[in-house]
Every structure is written in C-alpha cells, then in structure tokens.
C-alpha cells in the first residue's frame, strides 16, 4: 500500500529546512515540550510502545520495548546512544535526516533521554558524513541557545545534553556494542552479550542504543499519539507501525529516499517511487534493505502455509508482499534498513556478489575465527571465479563456508556476511557456473564499466 507521508521529510526540499526556525515553523519541538511538561517517564515509554516502532537500523527490535529494558532506578547514570554510523551498502536514509532535518533527531534525543532516564545522548556519526556532522553541531548550538538543551529544557528541571562523536570509518562500529567500545575509545570490536547494553553499556552504565531514524521519528509519535501513529502503517496488526524512510538505489530511474507508511511493497518502491527500471529492462533481483539481507528474485512466490497472517499473500510474488520486519522474515528474507538495491538484467550478479564479499572481508573486525577467515576465503574463491580461474569444486564450498559462519560468531556481522552469500549462490548458481565453465557475461570483469 503506497501512502506517502512527510513526518520526517516535511522540509527535505526547503533549502533552509535544517534550521531551527524552519523546524519550529513546521511544529517542531512541540512534542518535546509536551512530553517534558506533562508526561512521566513511564507514560513516554508506554506511548512509544503503542506506536510499535520497529528499530530502523536493520534488526527491527521494538523501540518502546528496548526503552523499557532500562533499569527503573540505578546509581549509575543512563545514556542514550544514537547509532549514526550508517555504513550498510545501499543504505543512505539516516544521512538525509541529519543533513536536512537534524532538529528532529535532537528533539527525539530529548524525548529519548527522558524516556530512558538519561541526561546525555551521544550521536555516533560515521566519520565520512561531514555535512551531517556540521548540521548536527549547528542544530545542537541552536537548540542550546534556545534553552531546549541544557539544565532546564522547556522549563523542566531535567538536564539533557547531546554530543556528537565521530567514528573512524569502520563498518563494524555500527554494531551497537562495537559502537560503545569505539565511543569509549577502545578498539571497535563487538562485546560479548549478555550483559546487554541496557545493563552494561557505554562506560559500564545502562545504555540504550537506537538508530537515527528510530529516534528522529519519536517526536512524531507524540504529535499524533502512539496508537494513531501505529495505525498509519498497513502492518499495524503485525505490530509494525508508523512511517519510515524507504530508499531505493541501483538500476531505477528515480533513486532516492521516500517517506511512506510502513507496508509499502517492493513493487511500489521500485516501479512507483523509483520510477521503474532504467531502460525498462527486466528486474533481475532486489536486495530489500542493505547488503546484509538476502536477495529476492522477481519470480519468487510467497509460500508460508502455516502462518494465517500470510494468507492474503500466499501465491503472490514477493514483490507484492508489504515490506515489514516480520513479513520478510517469514519468507526467509530480511527487511533490514528498508533501502533497496535494485538490479536489472544489466547487472552481473556474480560481480555484485564479489563486490559484497570484498566489502565484508574488508570490514570483518577479525575477532571470531569463522567470520575473520571465512569472509576472506569466500572472497578469494569469487576472485578466482571472476578471473576465470574458478572451479565447480570451489563453488560447491561457498555455501558450506557461509553456513558455518552463520550463527557461530559473537555479533550479527557474521550472519550479515553469510546470508547474502547464501542467497546469491542459491539464486544465481547458474550465473556462477556460467562464469566458471564459459567465462561469464562480463567483458570487463568489473562492476564499474
């Protein structure tokens, strides 16, 4: 169901939309004022729970639920950490918020801090996002000058400070516990869980880590009310509520970020919002939300007989399944960050897989054996395949290596690297074989040309 909204993107097309004046003109900071002056911490968490905001960073965990895991009382300070280390290949939604609507994030931080009992929020921004950092710093200055940040925001005796911390360009620092290590000045390696950040997070204190979009949408919840906000979504019944930013890139005519109610289908994203495929070529495959998600083919059919909720979609193309955390999970896929990578038949899936695995080999932190060595091995086999030196024997090893990475590592990076490999070898085995036996379709053997 295609329903465009503009809760986050209302000022995306205004040249000065990132300023405090423009944000307030559009009704900004009213939610934070309302929350701080009328609601208790528990009421805030309850309202966010009602909105069924599923984490926008890719894991899809319920935001209100996460906030409720924070201790009610503790001697240590609490922290809110915003994960702005947006580095997932194909994903470019968070930077639009930080660049064009930074005050939504700041306001979300104020409400978030209040909701989790924190007085400080750290926004961990990927180092390469220079404009995002500049806009955030400017926004923090503006908000502080107005007194929205500081000792008494909106007259309430509840101190809130927001800090921007820049990363150093490691993909793994988008993993929440690696991010916390990096924030503390340590090597960016995921931590063992448990303890979870809500118990032992940043600097050993209870911490909530949320994605930029998750936090930035929070003020909108209090504009329309939790229930109402959730009902904007076509998947309200699936506890997957609200609106979110959908991205589309690759071989589409109008790549970009579009704000819609949850429940959009991939077909709508590609053909309506994305304007269809370049040169109107056939669709080869689509990765729904960042490179860690399994790829889907256009001829894939939804077939989940034992879950009644799938009854309306069974027998239909995956492209017509509403994009939600649980809908895609049900068909063996993953929603991820909701930023789809579209490949027409002009794309070479073998080169695409090679490019992905090269990325994962480069970004594996090197802690766990299966991921450290496995990603490198997969890349090597693919190196040989695209150079025409591959063998069927080695092709038959790929799924085994990836299967043995899955689930056997400390963090989800291992699964994130293995799942695309598994889905690509399963779905594009013919093309891989073609490379090995007949040299493949690419003349250049690079993605660029």
């Amino acid at each position, binding site marked *: 169901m295609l329903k465009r909204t503009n809760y986050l993107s209302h000022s995306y097309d205004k040249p000065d939309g990132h300023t405090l004046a423009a944000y307030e003109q559009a009704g900004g900071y009213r939610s934070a004022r309302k929350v701080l002056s009328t609601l208790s911490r528990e009421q805030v968490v309850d309202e966010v729970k009602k909105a069924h905001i599923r984490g926008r960073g890719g894991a899809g965990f319920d935001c209100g639920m996460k906030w409720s895991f924070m201790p009610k009382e503790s001697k240590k300070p609490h922290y809110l950490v915003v994960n702005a280390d947006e580095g997932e290949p194909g994903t470019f939604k968070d930077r639009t918020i930080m660049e064009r609507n930074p005050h939504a994030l700041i306001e979300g931080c104020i409400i978030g801090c209040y909701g989790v009992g924190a007085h400080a929020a750290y926004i961990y921004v990927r180092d390469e996002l220079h404009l995002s950092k500049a806009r955030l710093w400017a926004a923090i200055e503006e908000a502080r000058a107005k007194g929205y940040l500081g000792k008494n925001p909106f007259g309430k005796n509840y101190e809130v400070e927001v800090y921007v911390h820049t990363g150093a360009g*490691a993909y*793994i620092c988008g993993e929440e516990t690696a991010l916390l290590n990096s924030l503390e000045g340590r*090597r960016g390696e995921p931590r*063992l869980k448990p303890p979870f950040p809500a118990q032992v997070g940043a600097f050993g204190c209870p911490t909530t880590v949320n994605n930029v979009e998750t936090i930035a949408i929070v003020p909108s919840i209090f504009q329309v009310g939790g229930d109402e906000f959730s009902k904007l979504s076509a998947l309200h019944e699936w506890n997957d509520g609200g609106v979110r930013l959908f991205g589309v890139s690759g071989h589409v005519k109008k790549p970009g970020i579009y704000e819609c109610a949850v429940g959009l289908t991939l077909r709508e994203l590609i053909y309506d919002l994305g304007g269809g495929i370049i040169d109107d070529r056939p669709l080869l495959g689509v990765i729904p939300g960042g490179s860690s998600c399994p790829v889907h083919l256009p001829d894939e059919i939804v077939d989940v007989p034992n879950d009644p909720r799938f009854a309306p979609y069974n027998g239909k193309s995956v492209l017509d399944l509403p994009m939600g955390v649980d809908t895609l999970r049900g068909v*063996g896929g993953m929603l991820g960050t909701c930023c789809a990578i579209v490949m027409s038949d002009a794309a070479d899936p073998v080169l695409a897989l090679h490019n992905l695995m090269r990325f994962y*080999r*480069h*970004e*594996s*932190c*090197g*802690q*766990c*054996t*299966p991921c*450290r*060595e*496995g*990603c*490198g*091995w997969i890349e*090597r086999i693919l190196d*040989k395949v695209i150079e025409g030196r591959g063998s069927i024997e080695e092709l*038959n*090893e790929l*799924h*085994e*290596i*990836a*299967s*043995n990475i*899955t*689930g*056997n*590592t*400390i963090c989800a990076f291992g*699964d994130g690297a293995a*799942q695309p490999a*598994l889905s690509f*070898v*399963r779905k594009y*085995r013919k093309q891989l074989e073609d490379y090995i036996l007949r040299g493949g379709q690419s003349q250049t053997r690079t993605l660029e040309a």
Partner: protein
Amino acid sequence: MPTFKLDDRDIEFQPGDTIIQAAHRAGVDIPHYCWHPGLSVAANCRMCLVELGPPPGRGPLLLDVLRYDAKTGEYVKTKKPKLVPACQQPLTEGMEVKSQTSEHVAEARAAVQELLLLNHPVDCPICDQAGECRLQDYWLSHGANKKRMRDEIVHKPKAVSFGPTIVYDAERCIVCTRCVRFCDEVVGDHVLDKRERGNLSEIVLAPGRQLDHAYTLMTEYVCPVGALTAKDFRFKARVWFLRSVRSVCVGCATGCNSYTDFDPRNQTVYRYRPRDNERVNKFWMCDEGMLDYRRIHTGRVLAAQAGGKQVAVDAGLDAAADACRKIDPNTSAVVLSAQHSNEDNFALLQLAQRLGVTRLFLSGRPEGEGDDILRSEDKNPNRTGVIGLCGLQTPGSFKDFAALAEQGNLRTVLALGSDAELPDRASALSKIESLVTIATHQGPFVKAARVVLPASSWAECDGTFVNRDGIAQLSERAVRPQGQSQPAWKLVAGLASRLGHDLGYKRVADVQAALAPQERSGAAVQEAGATA
C-alpha cells in the same frame, strides 16, 4: 551441588560457572584456544561451541543454512540450531549440553579448525610449538582433512622480535588474544594489542615499547600455537624428545610449581614450564624463575677439591673428615643453606648434633626484586623450611656469621651451599682456618674452602622446599647427578660415617622418613602435583 548434563555425563557445577569451567574442573576437555582458566573470557576462537537443549517449553533457536544436493544439482534450504560458546554460557540446573554427541557441534568445530589453518603456513617442521600445538592436536581430532584452499596464504610479519625474550610470527597467530589478556589482566601492563582487521589482524607492541616486563615468557606459554616462541628455547629441542617431572622453582621463596623438561638422552634440562597450583602460583611463573633452569648447567661444582687440587669424592670426604675431627664447639660453626632442600639441611643438622656443634647459621642468595604478583624479594626457596627444621634454635644470619669470622673466632666451619647473602661481606670467609663446603655452585664459600664437596642440584635429586607461606612442596628429580656430584645429604652421610656416626641414610626416602615428624609439625606438606 547443582548438576548439568554434558553429553551423557552428569557433572556438578558451582553457581556462576560457565560450561567450560565446570567441565574443566571435572577433567573433561572441551576443545578451546582462547579460553584460559586464569584469564577473562574472549569467546573469539569459537572452538568450544556446544549445543544446548532448548529451554523448557520452547523450541530450539534454528538458523537458515544451505546444503547442496549433488545429485539434483539443487541447493536445499535447511536449519541448524544456534550453538553457544561453552566458555561464555553460564550453567543452570539441569542444563543439557552436547559437546561430543552433536553432529552440528562436530561440523562447527571442524569448520573452525579448517578456518584457523586456512592462512596458517603449516611450517610445523621448523616450529618450536610442534608436538604441543593445539592446532595439531585439534586438527587430528576434528576433521583431519586435507587443506581445501590451495592458494597463497595471507602473508604477515614473521620472526618479529617482541623484546629480549619473545619472538612473534603473525602468520602462525590465531589472534586468540590470550597474550594480550595475560599482559593486561595479570601483569597490568598493556604492552600488547591487536592491529588491523579481519584476516589481516595481528598482535603488536605498544608504540615505543618492548615486551619487557617480568612475566614475558608466560605469553609464550599461554599462546596455544606457535605464534609466540621463547628466544631461549627456540630451535634447541623438539618437545617430543623431552620428558617432564613435577618440580618446584627454586628461584625465590614463592615456590612456584613447575615442570622441568629435560632430554633423557643427553641428561640436559631445556626449560621450566608453570604447573597449575591455585594455592601458590595459580597458572603463572616469572621470567626469572622460568630461566632459572639454566643454573642447573652453569657455574656448577662438579668435582671435589682438597688443598687447592681436584680430588676424587672419596678423597674429598676423607679430607673433610680430617678437618672435622678437629672440631671444637667453641670455634666451630655449621652454615645451613636456604637454597637447599629440607633433606640436605636436615642431614647436616643431624651431623652437627652428633659433632656437638651448636652454632648454626643460615645463608643463601642475596635479596632481589620482588612484586605483588609472584616474585619474592627473598631469592631462596627454603628459608622457611630450614628455620622450621632448626626448631627453637633459630640459626644466626650471615651478617652475624661474617662478623664472627672477621674476628678470627672460627676455626672449623662446615657449610652447605656457596652463597653469601651479603656479597660485600664475603671477604670475611678467608679468615676461617678450615672451611668445608658442600656446594652445587661456585661462589664465595667454595672460593674460601679448604675442602669442597660437589653436591647435586635440585634437578638431580628429590627434595622438599617450604615456601614463604609455609607450604612444603616436593620437587622431583629430573636428570642424573652431574659430574662427580652427589646429593648433599649423601655427602653428609658419608662424612658422618667417616667420623664414626651412622646416620642410616642410604636413599632419599630414608632422610624423608627421619624428617617427616619434624616437617609435619612445622608446615603443611603438599605433595607434588597435589592440585591440578
């Protein structure tokens, strides 16, 4: 005590235990690289993965994986249970853990093993770890497949000197971070860390630093593979030719439990390794102690001397007996040694008693550096033991002894050991008219002696040492007595019989039998290897 089920065995655990801890205590080895009982949990090697029974009332957590059906040429989607690392998973009552009996665990471990060897140079023939390398052991027990990756491995720095004692080979390294954690957590010196990412990861020194704290050799010992090797041991011996005995380090008063590794063919000791003992040294030893084995073969007294000439031991004993016959209790003294075992000192005390010598002194090696981890400032392994043997008659210090000698009041002295505790006062020894020294090593007492009898070192005979905490520990004999040397208690017994006193010591057990009642009264005896 609560129990859990490991494969088909019920094992007891203490609240808070992880699976691997409880299994380790029960003597069941769950394969592992990065876990060490004395270090924090890193859970990065993924070798100890086990399968858990599902929590009550819930199904197992299943993950999507693929199989390939060669017959149909199709991939088959399948599921596998989520495995957990045994080093990280805390136990609960009645938990069911599959380690040896799960096909998923077997597959995961074989995969980890294959991946660890993927970029490993497999240079076992020139690697000092060969024979005691976990990569070799677990390769045999997990898959034992031929290497499937036939391409050039990832090359990394080799033979990097980390400091005076350790050499690092990054290609052999499995980045388990045991060495990093050891330096951080036990020594408190963050001198090692990791650099780079993914399969380029390697261990590096802190900028401007060397691995030069007092426990560097332990990094080699905690390294489960051949990445860290000790300069001292490199290329000296193949470990499968070495035999081990349970020994006690005699480097200081801590009495760390160790293994003495020696080659029985050439009767040479090659190294000490720490032996776990929760009460004494836990899992560790210091560099000074681990390198102390070198004293077994250097600076030794290997023949008897009398009147400035080398003589047979019998002739030496005769000469010593001649000297002792002139003993006048007013001008004689016996010097005991804090370097020697209870057995040696006890025999000498018995002889002193028979000869009527009442002036007892105690000497040993001079004080050195100590710390709060293991090292004692007292560099003698048995001061507590000797003082205990003397009972109420506490022996005088070397300072008093030197003062007495300086005044010319000592004619005949029977000394065990050659160490002067205050080296700058050693010149007083030359004032002694007739000094008989029973010693393992060269030193001031040997230099000043009229008669020198060659004693076997701690590695050449069994002996009991009482550490600073009063724990008596047995150190086993490794090699045969070197040169003409004999155990000191035997030399004392020979001397006694020449003087008409039969102490009745033929074997070390005879001394120990005579010694037992006294030892038990003063100290808790701990048999060698009594604790794991």
